[in-house]
């Protein structure tokens, strides 16, 4: 499981910038399953993110990994 904001293992290292107020304004950028950078589209009321390996996620789905 990887941090969706920095792409590093969610259970390791420092994620100070990935959580709290800072994390709340960032959509996920990295796939929680493989840490690939995702193609992200932010819209007025949500976001969608596509991983070339693991497919699409949206703000309406549950995304785990320090989000």
């Amino acid at each position, binding site marked *: 499981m990887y941090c969706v904001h920095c792409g590093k293992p969610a259970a390791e290292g420092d994620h100070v910038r990935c959580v709290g*107020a800072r994390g*709340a304004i*960032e959509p996920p950028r990295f796939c929680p399953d493989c840490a690939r950078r995702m*193609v992200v*589209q*932010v819209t*007025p009321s949500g976001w969608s993110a596509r991983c070339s390996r693991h497919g699409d996620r949206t703000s309406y789905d549950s995304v785990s990994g320090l989000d």
Partner: protein
Amino acid sequence: MTAAADERTKADVLDLAREQVLERGEGLDEAQVLEVLALPDERIPELLALAHEVRMRWCGPEVEVEGIVSVKTGGCPEDCHFCSQSGQFTSPVRSAWLDIPGLVRAARETAATGASEFCIVAAVRGPDKRLMSQVRDGIKAIRADGNDIQIACSLGMLSQEQVDELVEMGVHRYNHNLETARSHFPSVVTTHSWEERWDTLRMVHAAGMEVCCGGIIGMGETVEQRAEFAVQLAELNPHEVPMNFLIPQPGTPYEGFDVVEGRDALRTIAAFRLALPRTILRFAGGRELTLGDLGAEQGMLGGINAIIVGNYLTNLGRPAQQDLDMLDELNMPIKALSETL
């Protein structure tokens, strides 16, 4: 005369502002804005109250609500040091294009909030034919969807031909931020000049589109440069000034910059209002990080009279309903679309 005596005889800048800005509607000059920016923390409530009076007197109680969307994200050739969409930095933002159905949905989501403005934005130096075509098709599709929201664009630097084309498409306002004071710009952007941006803004104005031009506070500018920027915007006389506060974006040269302190942000908002008494002053990106919920309310009561609701281009905002509830609690009516048409 001693310094103390000089201080006693010198007119207080807020007293001056009350007479000059509130009563006569004349914005503060650079030296006066600088004095306002130097006011001590204990005078911030007094400053915000005056800025609010000025806003109510010269702009009225209504708040203009807008939604924005990025039609082309990332991969920009420019090196704006604050921007996560520059292709020159190691930002995690990847390139993306929003298709026409997505653009129509975004406009629909924006209209559903009661917003009167929808701004289509692209991370480019300037639009190419493909982007102009996408915008044209997008506007047609938004209208075909029965959505009559006012459409603005932000597509970088324009040629005269592109300005004319946007007017013909029905784009009523064009956003192109000068971003910061002219004297500070070269340390923020090296791939184009402040003057090139200014040239686009003059063309937009001459073509009859409303000019939307603001910037970002917190990019290492001095307080003097904030005052300089305020009066440079006043000289441009834009219809709208969006005020952003730096979000230190991962991978950009400004990644390690501090977030603007809330009191400085409020002081800057009020100072800009006193320099621009009749201009739409819009809360834009970074307010969530810099001001939080309480600070947002203080800003609305300190000179702001417009707001971007929902998400931004690459960052998330508060849920739109939270801002609409805030406006309701503050008894600030949303400017109706019918009044802008």
